[in-house]
C-alpha cells in the first residue's frame, strides 16, 4: 500500500502518502488534528473507513481490495473525494471526446490532452466534466472527477423516457428529442446515446440539426435534461455569476407542474 501511494498516479498529483486514519488512531495520538481540511473530508474518510470494504485486518487500506483506477481517481481526501469510493466505483464513465490541443507560447508549442467525460449512475444522475493534462490517462481521470462534481438529477417518465418533446439550441447545435414508448430504444446521435445511457433514459428518438460538434451536443443535452432546482439566472446564490449551463428551465416532470399550478393533470391515454 505504501509503495502504491508513493509511486502511483496519486503521488504525482500531490496526494498525501500517510495512511487513512481512524478515531482510534487519533485517540492514540498517532495523527495530528489538522490533517483534514474540512469536517466533510474527515467524515468522508471515516465513512469509507467504517464501511470496512477497503481495510484489511490491520486497519490499513487494503492494496489488493482497492482497484488501481479507484486510488488514481481519488488523489487526496481533501481534493477529490467528492463521493465515497463505493459510490464512485458504481458510476458509468464515458470519455466521449479526447483531443490533443496545443498552446502556442513564446517558447514554442505546449501540447496537452483535453478530455470530456460523461458520468452517470443509470438511475437518474448524470454529469459532464472536462479535464486537461499533458498525459491522456490523467486528463481522463481529471475529467471524471469534474463529472462527479457535476452530477445532477434527471426527472424521467416511468424511469425510462422524457416527459415532453425537447427542442434546445447550444450555439449552432440544435437538438430535438422526443419521448417514445417502452422498448423503442435510443435511436439518436451517438453522443446523445451515451448521455441518455448514463442518465438512465432508455427510449427516445432524437435529431441534431446544424453543427454536430460533440462537445456542444453533450452540453446542450445536459442543460435541458436536468431541470434544476435553483432559481434561474441567479448563479450559485453566493456571488458567482450565472453560467451558460444554467440557462433556461430544463425539463420538469408531472409532479412539479401539478404543484405549481395546484391542479391535477388529466390522464389523456386513449381508452
Amino acid at each position, binding site marked *: 500500500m505504501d509503495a502504491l501511494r508513493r509511486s502511483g498516479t496519486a503521488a504525482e498529483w500531490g496526494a498525501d502518502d500517510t495512511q487513512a486514519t481512524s478515531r482510534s488512531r487519533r485517540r492514540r495520538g498517532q495523527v495530528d488534528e489538522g490533517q483534514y481540511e474540512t469536517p466533510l473530508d474527515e467524515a468522508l474518510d471515516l465513512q469509507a473507513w467504517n464501511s470496512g470494504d477497503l481495510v484489511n485486518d490491520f486497519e490499513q487500506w487494503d492494496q489488493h481490495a482497492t482497484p488501481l483506477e479507484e486510488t488514481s481517481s481519488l488523489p487526496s481526501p481533501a481534493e477529490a473525494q467528492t463521493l465515497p469510493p463505493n459510490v464512485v466505483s458504481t458510476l458509468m464513465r464515458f470519455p466521449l471526446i479526447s483531443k490533443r490541443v496545443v498552446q502556442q507560447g513564446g517558447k514554442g508549442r505546449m501540447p496537452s490532452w483535453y478530455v470530456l467525460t460523461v458520468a452517470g449512475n443509470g438511475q437518474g444522475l448524470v454529469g459532464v466534466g472536462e479535464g486537461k493534462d499533458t498525459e491522456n490517462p490523467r486528463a481522463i481521470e481529471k475529467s471524471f472527477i469534474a463529472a462527479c462534481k457535476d452530477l445532477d438529477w434527471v426527472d424521467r417518465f416511468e424511469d425510462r423516457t422524457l416527459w415532453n418533446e425537447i427542442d434546445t439550441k447550444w450555439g449552432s447545435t440544435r437538438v430535438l428529442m422526443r419521448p417514445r414508448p417502452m422498448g423503442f430504444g435510443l435511436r439518436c446521435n451517438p453522443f446523445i446515446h451515451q448521455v441518455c445511457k448514463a442518465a438512465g433514459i432508455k427510449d427516445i428518438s432524437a435529431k441534431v440539426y446544424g453543427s454536430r460538434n460533440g462537445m456542444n451536443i453533450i452540453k446542450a443535452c445536459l442543460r435541458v435534461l436536468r431541470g434544476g432546482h435553483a432559481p*434561474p439566472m441567479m448563479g450559485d446564490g453566493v456571488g458567482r455569476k450565472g453560467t451558460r449551463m444554467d440557462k433556461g428551465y430544463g425539463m420538469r416532470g408531472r409532479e412539479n407542474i401539478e404543484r405549481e399550478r395546484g391542479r391535477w393533470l388529466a390522464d389523456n391515454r386513449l381508452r
Partner: protein
Amino acid sequence: MPRAHDISARIQNAFRARLAQVAVPHTTQNLAILSILLQSGFVSSLTRGTVAGPSPTAFDTCMGKLESKRRIWADLKYRDDRPVLTNMAAISKPSNRIYMDVDEIKRICTGRRAAWIVRPLQMGEIAVVRTRSKENRFLEAREAVRLGLGGEVLCRAR
C-alpha cells in the same frame, strides 16, 4: 372577432417580466380564455377593473362611459422564482384559420400532429377551442373532446 394574439402576447410577456398582475381588454373572448387559464391553474384570480387598476366598483361606474377603459386583471403565479406559464401563442391566424373537428382535436391531445401545422399538446399544455355551441362557446381542448365538439383552435399555453 376571434384573434388571440393580443392576449397571448400580453400574458406571456407579463410572466416573463415577472409582473404580479396583467390587464387585458374586457371582451367576452378574453374573459373566456382567462377563465380557462384560471381553471388550468396558470393564474390565481381574475378581477374586473379599469386601466388604473383592478376594482369592480370602478368597473361598474365606467358603464356608460368608454368601454375602452375597462380591463380584466389577472394575478400571475410563480413558484421557486419560476413563472408557471412560459409560452402562450396563437394557433389560428388571420392568414391561416385553423378549424378542427373532434377527431383532429383528439389527435393533438394524444401526441400526434393535426391540420398539418398544429403540433401535439405536450405534457401540461392546454389549447383553447371556440365552438359553435351556445352553452359551451369556449372550451379547453380536452373538454371539447369529452363533449364531442369541434371548432376554431385559438391559442395554446404551457
